[in-house]
């Protein structure tokens, strides 16, 4: 190493060089494999570029982006993605918080339950889609058959009807990810200062008052962080949609990722798909910024820093 790099004499310089060399491989790797393709994607997005007709490639400026916001099908995909994200994350937060409160007391029973509760979040998302596709079929499905016999939902099954399919996908996502939400919120609950909660009990506050005035404000940072993480993932939903409905019927469950993958890797419409990918990225960055700002403000209000 001495031969390659002149060894600095001062210890602080040597340490700085050491830390730099430790971080460099990962930074270079992410830049080469992540940022480089991303920037190429931005480049492609200004072209009409189809792999099947490479000869007809031409520069179209912002036309792909204009198309995204004017095309009926794409607009549906954007709205669907937002509807999916807002409702699935919202429901997960409610269910997850309830479960976390129920599991708060530390006992062997609760620890064991938590371990099994996490199964839906660990299995392959593709398999989750397959399971519900089979269960919800109106003709043979364990759930779908009885729903349809009871006259609930459309005759063809909940996943094949445009009015219900997206809501079913939202519920499937809740089934899959509520356990993880529970886990994150439970970790936040367990980190709460015990003496403060004790004081609430002594003051004779009711359970609801304790929750509303003590637990909820203290939990705000955890809640927003959990929301941020889950929102990012929900916005990129692909696996379960792909296998259950494939975006159908009639684009009723098309999401941005679904659209991008279909355009890019099935129709080889690289230019348009890149634009869709970039718009998705932009939306995610926007949501993340807003959520992080909210977290910081909540933090300032509660902890005064």
């Amino acid at each position, binding site marked *: 190493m001495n031969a390659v790099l002149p060894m600095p004499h001062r210890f602080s310089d*040597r340490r*700085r060089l050491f*830390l*730099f060399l*430790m*971080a*460099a*491989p*990962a*930074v270079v790797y992410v830049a080469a*494999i992540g940022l*480089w*393709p*991303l920037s*190429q*994607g931005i480049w*492609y997005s200004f072209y009409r570029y189809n792999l099947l007709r490479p000869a007809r490639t031409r520069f179209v400026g912002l036309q792909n982006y204009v198309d995204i916001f004017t095309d009926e099908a794409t607009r549906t995909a954007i709205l669907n993605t937002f509807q999916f994200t807002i409702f699935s994350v919202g429901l997960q937060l409610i269910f997850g918080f309830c479960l976390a409160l129920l599991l708060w*007391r530390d006992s062997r029973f*609760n620890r064991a*339950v*938590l*371990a*099994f*509760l996490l*199964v*839906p979040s*660990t*299995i*392959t*998302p*593709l*398999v989750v889609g*397959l*399971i*519900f596709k*089979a*269960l919800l079929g109106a003709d*043979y499905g364990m759930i779908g*058959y009885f729903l349809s*016999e009871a006259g609930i939902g459309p005759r063809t099954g909940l996943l094949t009807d445009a009015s219900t399919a997206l809501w079913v996908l939202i519920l499937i996502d809740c089934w899959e990810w509520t*356990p*993880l939400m529970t886990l*994150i919120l439970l970790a936040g609950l367990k980190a709460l200062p015990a003496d403060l909660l004790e004081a609430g009990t002594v003051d004779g506050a009711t359970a609801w008052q304790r929750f509303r005035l003590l637990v909820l404000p203290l939990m705000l940072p*955890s809640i927003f*962080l959990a929301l941020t*993480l889950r929102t990012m993932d929900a916005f*990129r939903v692909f*696996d379960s949609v792909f296998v259950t409905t494939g975006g159908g019927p009639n684009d009723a469950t098309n999401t941005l*990722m679904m659209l*991008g*993958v279909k355009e890019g*890797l099935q129709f080889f419409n*690289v230019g348009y*798909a*890149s634009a869709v*990918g970039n718009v*998705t*990225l932009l939306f*995610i*960055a926007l949501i993340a910024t807003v959520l992080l700002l909210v977290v910081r403000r909540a933090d300032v209000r509660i902890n005064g820093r």
Partner: protein
Amino acid sequence: MSRVSRRRILAERTVVLVATLLFLLPVCWLIATAYKPSNQIFTVPPRLTFEPTLDQFRQALALFDVVSLVRSSLVISLGTTLLSLLLGVPSGYALARSKARFATGFAYFFLAIRMIPAIAALIPFYLLMRDIGLLGSWWAVIVFNTMLNCAFVTWMMFSYFKSLPPDMEEAALTDGCTLIGAFLRVALPSVRSGIIACALFCMMFSWNDFLHPMFLTTLDSKPISVALLTAYGTKDITWGTLGALAHFSTIPIVLMALFMNRYFVQGATNGVQ
């Protein structure tokens, strides 16, 4: 919390148990289909009882080269995990110990990388792999997934090392230990559980991933997740066979998550705070 009545605990536990069952039953159903004869999986009306059989497994093993599929999944997820840890742990350490002001900003940059929608980078990456002839190999998937996962590991390890006071390393350095020695022999052992948690998350991510290998691998290199999709799209493959095949894809990861639950919980906690 000590004066909670027995009846209330019982009520709470009942609710929790019912909820857990709701979360487990669909998985149990899929597992069960693998032991049902084909004509008893979907009946009108659906019923709960069946005569157990291993036919579906025989069918799955006859139609699919399960060994090669599982091997692909293993190679891809182990390769990704190993590379991600090798790249991510040192950089997480460096960012946590650096006194430079931009270090924390850099850590957030790595977190942001983990959040990019795959499609934005996957298409150019696909074309790149095609041009250099790596398309269809395990390497293509490993290289791409390592990019996402090493960023995540960097972020996780950054927060683990941040919460580890540097006093011990300082003491070792004063005693004549080298900088690398202080990292390898003092800092690393103290964050062992963090590294295990990272490894667990990388394994789960790559094992469960199917979008990337679906486009980056071919028939001979595809992992079990992609095979499941192909199987699902094939007309003459029954749900029972699919259930049997799903065993190989879900059971390993569920067992891993159950046995290493402590690290799973710890990792999820640490990723947040």
